[in-house]
């Protein structure tokens, strides 16, 4: 950090290491989060995303590295001195205090004047519309109300950075959708920096300005939701995002005259429209990735640059659309099509797709080609 950096990042993490004994949970992790960004840390359980959040909050002692919040080195500061507010998965409301007591506990610990405490509580209650609940105890609240109070507890602290640790995971599906929208609205209204941990990719894609996908304590890719979805950096990210997940066909790259081709068992795909990230090598073993929703089935297939045909093995109607399971080039292959298409077990159908929407990964390194 130097003074001439005109824009101070809201949160910066430099070369962060964390290990419990011999177990390395985070390895040389770097992360810069600009002011006002909504960053989602996404990954399967055990990937270190919650650990990273706890390090930023100061709830875990780091083994090496530095953490800056609003330009201040807070690596060794107490959680309450870092200018953060945190919302937990289990709400973590103090059961013996009223909602008002929960909201004001932190402020009282700061020895803030009573009038100011009242003002802040009132404002947070107004924003979250929990004024009627202030005198109740957490036990008398519904899950959604509890989570609102938990958010309120972060809100009253009037901090620059909000940390969310899977805040919606304990709620049922409908409520989760409602609160998700509310969270986004809250972010738009307050403009704070928010770091949000989840394992739910829908939450990540809908909420985030940027998503950081983590695996084994390392950030695999950090990008906008669109970037992550369309141009995954590696095989792991490609397989992690999207449901049903991307189809992968094993094969090789080959060069015929001027055109690169992907060749598998009985499938050849010309790659003249594919946007290579790195320079390909002839005869390179690769995985050809294609999202189920980027494959046209039936009549629509004819307008696509590459065509083939499949035999339907299984049909899963999912309401808005239908997932068709089949086989292509010797591997399992799923296609997502709209629910009007009539397909049934055993049918043969033409399929088509555009290689420019595909992702190709080196079979050795797993990186995007």
């Amino acid at each position, binding site marked *: 950090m130097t003074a001439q950096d005109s824009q101070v990042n809201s949160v910066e993490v430099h070369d962060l290491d964390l290990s419990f004994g011999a177990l390395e949970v985070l390895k040389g992790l770097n992360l810069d989060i600009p002011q006002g960004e909504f960053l989602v840390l996404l990954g399967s359980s055990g990937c270190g995303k919650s650990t990273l959040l706890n390090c930023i909050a100061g709830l875990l002692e780091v083994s090496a590295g530095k953490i800056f919040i609003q330009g201040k080195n807070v690596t060794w500061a107490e959680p309450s001195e870092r200018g953060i507010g945190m919302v937990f998965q289990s709400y973590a409301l103090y059961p013996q205090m009223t909602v008002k007591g929960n909201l004001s506990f932190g402020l009282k610990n700061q020895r803030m004047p009573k009038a100011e405490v009242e003002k802040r509580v009132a404002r947070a209650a107004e924003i979250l519309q929990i004024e009627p609940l202030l005198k109740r105890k957490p036990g008398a609240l519904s899950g959604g109300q509890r989570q609102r109070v938990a958010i309120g*507890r972060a809100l009253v602290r009037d901090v620059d950075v909000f940390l969310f640790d899977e805040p919606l995971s304990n709620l049922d599906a409908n409520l989760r959708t409602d609160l998700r929208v509310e969270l986004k609205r809250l972010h738009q209204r307050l403009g704070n920096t928010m770091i949000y941990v989840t394992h739910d990719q829908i939450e990540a894609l809908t909420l985030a300005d940027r998503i950081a996908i983590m695996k084994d304590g390392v950030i695999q890719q950090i990008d906008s939701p669109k970037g992550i979805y369309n141009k995954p950096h590696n095989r792991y990210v490609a397989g992690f995002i999207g449901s049903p997940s991307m189809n992968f066909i094993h094969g090789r790259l080959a060069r015929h005259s001027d055109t690169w081709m992907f060749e598998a068992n009985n499938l050849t795909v010309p790659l003249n429209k594919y946007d290579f990230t790195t320079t390909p090598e002839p005869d390179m073993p690769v995985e050809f990735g294609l999202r189920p929703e980027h494959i046209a089935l039936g009549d629509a297939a004819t307008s696509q640059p590459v065509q083939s045909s499949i035999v339907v093995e299984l049909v899963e109607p999912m309401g808005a659309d239908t997932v068709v399971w089949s086989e292509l080039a010797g591997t399992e292959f799923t296609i997502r099509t709209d629910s009007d298409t009539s397909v049934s077990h055993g049918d043969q159908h033409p399929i088509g797709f555009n290689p420019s929407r595909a992702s190709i990964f080196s079979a050795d390194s797993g990186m995007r080609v």
Partner: protein
Amino acid sequence: MVENVVETDTVPQGPRPRRAFSRTNIMLYGTLIVVALYYLLPLYVMIVTSLKGMPEIRLGNIFSPPLEVTFEPWVKAWSTACTGINCDGLSRGFWNSVRILVPSVFLSIAIASINGYALARWRFKGSELFFSILIVGAFIPYQTMLYPLVIILREIGLMGSLWGLVLVHTVFGMPILTLLFRNYFTAIPEDLHKAARVDGAGFWGIYFRIMLPMSLPIFVVAMILQVTGIWNDFLFGVIYTKPDTYPMTVQLNNIVNSVQGIKEYNVNMAATLLTAAVPLLLYFVSGKLFVRGIAAGAVKG
């Protein structure tokens, strides 16, 4: 019509046959009642004996209810029964026990709950090691630690005093109580602790403002465990106190098993019941919590 026919064919009609007096049930309840009577027998015998006069005891049957109820044995046991040269009854032992009990229970629970809290949420280098030794220590026979404690108490000038015994009870109550509190505090969601830290509460703040108010049941369980254990203690009482400060159990044993004089069984039984009264009362009043307490104390690790 068709539906009805089908139903009569497949479903037995009428209520299920009553099985209240089935052979299994008679055996089940029969066994339970016989066993229950056996368990109640000593209490019953103690009560009837304590209400009889000595002549009636000598002539009569140990099980027969008193022909003439007298409370004299109770009065004698409480205020004039003799141990050695002291003839002021069990009352002295009772008050000694109370004076030992109250600070012991308070001190042992205060220390163990803070230990358990530190072990559950504020681990430091070595804390787990100390805890492991503490738990292993619960299995060391007291006999190997009795004499070193005599020396320690003598050095700090508490040997023979009530406060010395309080210290001994606090030390030996620590393993099981610490385990009890540690397990309880570990089960409280860690997020709560984290939230309180983000809210700026420290070690003591979280203990007093968050953990303590949430943990009343476990404090009651620990209290039951300690009151019963300390009140019923004999070994430490006999070793670390002197006749003036003997707790009730020691005094009771001295009264009943003293070799001098004629045996007054009615007074003895009254004295025994008086000594048993405190834990029995606690047991019958606290019921489920008592069971939870001993189960918690019993199920180690």
